[in-house]
């Protein structure tokens, strides 16, 4: 059997093959690197700095804890350095608009596989160009950053909408969320501005971390408690404020009453409120049962207090 000359070999070599050294000087062997960083945004920016510093083209950039075995080329571990990260930031700011750096940060938080290389190529392209490249949507990386930003902004907006606080007995407003992306760092600002006079906690059950606002600043927290039912986010009765049940019930009633049954359109409803968000939405949780004597009693109490204080007011 004859194989045509122009047919490709079955295996394409993955690592670059050294050119035969003749009378000419050999082309330098371009080594490819896997960069490992600590998984933070500053770590990624430091990595980009190192790439430029060493003139070492990366094959992949990966968070150290997610690292897959790497067969060809060399592994380089980058130690996060704030000065180096800062210099990359300044470089980006010089070449692009004010919002660009933030949009890279947001894209980074989307936790998508391969995002590091997209951000690296974006920065490389921005640095090499004389124009601001942010709007060149014919470039795949630029378009991708724009699209991921749209996704993550939508998720942030959903969190602004779907966070449901429960008031605790010691007056902290507590909410659980499980967003698609790691948007917690992007939420603090909105809720700080909205509720400057109330203490609140937003806890991400998927990533097991939360933020707590103490009316002065927002702190990162972890939760060590069994008082929260993780499947519904509901607080245990003994740590819940006595009025909480009443307002949750009223909200559930309102949600039903404000609906126009003649216009029912579940497809549209689910499009706007996807099912994966339902478990922490109070209006989607089973209606508080008035039949149990205890609930009835505590609700009547709450109502009486509620109406009395109002009369006094």
């Amino acid at each position, binding site marked *: 059997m004859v194989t045509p000359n122009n047919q490709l070999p079955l295996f394409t070599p993955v690592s670059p093959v050294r050119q035969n050294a003749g009378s000419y000087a050999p082309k330098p062997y371009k080594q490819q690197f896997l960069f490992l960083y600590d998984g933070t945004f500053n770590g990624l920016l430091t990595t980009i700095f190192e790439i430029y510093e060493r003139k070492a083209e990366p094959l992949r950039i990966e968070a150290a804890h997610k690292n897959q075995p790497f067969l060809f080329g060399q592994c380089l571990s980058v130690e996060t350095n704030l000065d180096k990260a800062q210099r990359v930031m300044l470089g980006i700011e010089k070449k692009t608009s004010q919002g660009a750096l933030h949009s890279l940060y947001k894209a980074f938080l989307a936790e998508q596989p391969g995002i590091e290389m997209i951000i690296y190529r974006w920065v490389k392209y921005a640095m090499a160009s004389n*124009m601001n*490249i942010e*709007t*060149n*949507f*014919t*470039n795949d990386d630029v*378009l991708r950053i724009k699209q991921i930003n749209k996704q993550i902004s939508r998720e942030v*907006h959903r969190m*602004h*909408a*779907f*966070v*449901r*606080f429960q*008031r605790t007995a010691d007056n902290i*407003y507590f*909410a659980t969320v499980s967003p698609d992306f790691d948007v917690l760092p992007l939420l603090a600002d*909105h809720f700080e*501005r*909205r*509720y*400057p*006079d*109330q203490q609140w906690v937003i806890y991400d059950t998927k990533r097991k971390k939360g933020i707590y606002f103490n009316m002065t600043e927002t702190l990162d927290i972890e939760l060590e408690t069994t008082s929260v039912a993780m499947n519904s986010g509901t607080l245990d009765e003994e740590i819940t404020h006595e*009025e909480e049940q*009443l*307002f949750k*019930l*009223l*909200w559930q*009633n*309102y*949600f039903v*009453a*404000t*609906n*126009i*049954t*003649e*216009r*029912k*359109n579940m*497809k*549209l*409803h689910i499009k*706007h*409120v996807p099912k994966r968000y339902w478990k922490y*939405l*109070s*209006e989607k949780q089973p209606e508080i049962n*008035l039949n149990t004597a205890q609930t009835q009693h505590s*609700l*009547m109490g709450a*109502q009486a207090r*509620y*109406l009395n204080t*109002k*009369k006094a*007011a």
Partner: protein
Amino acid sequence: MLRIQEKLQILADAAKYDVSCSSSGVKKSNGGKGLGNSDGMGICHSYTEDGRCVSLLKVLLTNHCIFDCAYCVSRKSNDIPRAAFTVNEVVELTINFYRRNYIEGLFLSSGIFKNADYTMERLVRIAKLLRTEHNFHGYIHLKTIPGASPELLLEAGLYADRLSVNIELPSEKSLQHLAPEKNYKEIFEPMNFLSTKLISSKEERKIFKKAPKFAAAGQSTQLIVGASPESDRQILKLAGGLYSEQRLKRVYYSGYIPVMSDTRLPSLTSLPPLLRENRMYQADWLMRFYGFAVDEIAPENVPFLDTELDPKMAYALRNPAMFPVEINTADYELILRVPGIGVKSAKMIVAARKHAFLTLENLKKMGVATNRAQYFITCKGVLASQMPNAKPEQIRQLVMSNHNKHQKKHTGQLSLF
């Protein structure tokens, strides 16, 4: 059931036919104190099962009413349970819902009891209490009661972000027919008064930054579609005038839902005209964001919108001479007229083409609905659909076979063969 539950149920149920629930159009902070703010873009905290946004606590102060408007569920002659909130009940509900992040604020309307001023005065009192006693900076939308005195309207504007008076029926004749106690004069007088005041207040604030804000999110109104015989063109003409003359921020269209039997109205069994309502909103968007005039959307010889095609597509097929548009050179305004290209895509196109020539592939990736746009654009001179001789009628068929999500609704009875 608790009494407060019962009240909320009755008064939310009676308020739900007011479709407005927007919380956008005003940006304000609380200066680090008090409760609430507004970011300008509005947030829908939930959606009802009918797919409408739940942004505000939308309730009536009371559904007792001395009027007998045929289209209204709270009309005097309707035998329904009645209730009334106390001022403090509304305030507490608003604050407690707001603190739990259920809502963006309050939308308060009311049936008319005693007289217009008496009712309006109570609405204003609630807004004032929220703002002054409770330091509440969330969104407040107050309904202006037709016939209320200018002094009360002025006070309302100091506390509310948005004011609205509903025209409901798109012609004076229909209003007189269905709501004999109301008239256009009583509706338009407060509206005109407010629009003058809104403009002058904006001017003042240009000169004196500290001048008090007056209903910063402006005015809106609602028109009922399908309760009276007006054409789409008539309704859009009215809306267009409201945008340009009265400077309204929003006109809402509410497909009429039969609430009680009345010989003057569509029967109780008739379905709400949801598709027509949807087309009205699309047309409204074309007026507000795409630079279309009413005469272009619904010209005299085509007084009703095409139910099978969106109004922008219908416009393009009526005006083949306007197209195709060259995507790499045409003005933004022209690109905006292409079916399948929205405001965001148009802006992306205009920004991206400074860097490189755009191909159909680029447009697809950028999110343009090329299945609709292809008949109306060229990329570097080549018609994207590659069908230079296609007649509007052909394009119509192609687009409809490609895009028939609404068709089912028209079929009705299945054919036997």
